[in-house]
């Protein structure tokens, strides 16, 4: 049921996920953070069973940190995305992690956003979404996304998506976590509760 969306702006990437933790048909909480900070210029939003999600996110985060310790240099966003996809593909034929990922970051190449699903498909995109939310918000992102969006414009578009999810999605979601990554690092916006 997890919803995740991301859009790339002029010099930043915005990621948003719903803030709900679930158990069976219950909603456990509404301030769950599903966007992990991989390092100072990379974010990863993930959806899927919460055990797989936490395990996989930490596995990637820790391995990228290990790479930095071993080699004294930081992975580019592209390299991190390729690595993450590789790990998904590796475990796919063993004991798969059921996670869908949006990986965002900012480096010498500028802002970039990668979309990956649990069967290890990957695409570099300008905007994307995962989960049931994708059915509702992709058209909104297509309609309102512009190549050189400012942060304010991107937040407005994200709000349109949240409204739509509240209005039309049967399993209505009303709390969202939004993070932004740009050249200065990562930031968490105040929680969106609608």
């Amino acid at each position, binding site marked *: 049921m997890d919803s995740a969306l991301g859009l790339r702006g002029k010099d930043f990437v915005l990621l948003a996920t719903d803030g709900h933790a679930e158990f069976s048909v219950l909603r456990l909480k509404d301030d769950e953070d599903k966007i992990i900070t991989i390092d100072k210029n990379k974010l990863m939003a993930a959806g899927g069973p919460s055990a797989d999600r936490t395990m996989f996110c930490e596995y990637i985060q820790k391995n990228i940190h290990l790479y930095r310790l071993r*080699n004294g*240099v930081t*992975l*580019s966003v*592209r*390299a991190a*995305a*390729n*690595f993450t996809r*590789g790990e998904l593909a590796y475990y796919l034929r063993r004991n798969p992690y059921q996670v869908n990922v949006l990986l965002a970051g900012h480096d*010498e190449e500028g802002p970039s956003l990668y979309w990956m699903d649990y069967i290890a498909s990957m695409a570099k995109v300008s905007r994307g979404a995962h989960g049931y939310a994708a059915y509702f918000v992709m058209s909104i992102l297509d309609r309102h996304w512009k190549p050189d969006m400012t942060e304010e414009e991107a937040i407005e578009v994200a709000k349109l998506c949240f409204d739509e999810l509240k209005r039309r999605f049967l399993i209505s979601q009303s709390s969202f976590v939004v993070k932004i990554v740009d050249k200065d690092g990562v930031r968490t916006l105040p929680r969106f509760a609608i």
Partner: protein
Amino acid sequence: MARRYDQRTTTFSPEGRLHQVEYAIEAISHAGSVIGIQAKDGVVLAGEKKETTKLVDPGKRGEKVYKIDDHVIVAVAGLTSDANALVNRARINAQHYFSRYGENEPVEQLVVSLCDYKQQYTQFGGLRPFGVSFMFAGWDRHFGFQLYQSDPAGNYTGWKATAIGNNYSSAVPMLKQDWKEDMALDEAVHLAAKVLLKTTESSSLTSDKCEFAVLTVKDGKVSHRMLTNDEILAESKKLEQEQQQTTTTTTTS
């Protein structure tokens, strides 16, 4: 007495030395010399091919400089057969990195991986160490142009300019004297030719006596190539002229 500590590669002598490893390093200083020089817009590797009979058909492949990947080349000094095995390993390592991360392996990581492998043979018994020193030239987005040298023990160091193999101890002071911080690549090639000519104590340079490779970046893409015989001959001629000029000035003064 000394023999007791010579036989096994991984046994320390009472003086705390590993003789086999030292012999391996010593063997390199008789191998065809290699000179590497970093310039502001590229790196040059120059290697001396040891004289063999002219009956040998060299084929198309060179024997001193190998391509590891688009962004790294290496010149070898030592046992060619050992070098082949290590070059093969380095190539696999570079491609493995590319398949994992979708971009070129940083040069130092490639050097480290190969040196880790070489180091194993100085520690685990029964096998001899690799009798090869390498001179790596490469470019990556982290540190730009780079030049590294490695020895059979698995040590490696980064350099602006250095030499390995035959007569390296006389080549290094020459490089020290003539290397400049903002050298252009053609100046570096010229310096490499000059040093190689002096260390090999030959009268001229030709493509059957030496190999030259240059690595540059053009429009954000790394490229490298071997110098042609004509280019090597041109360098050789330029050196001869310079030599004549210095001799005439010394005789007139």
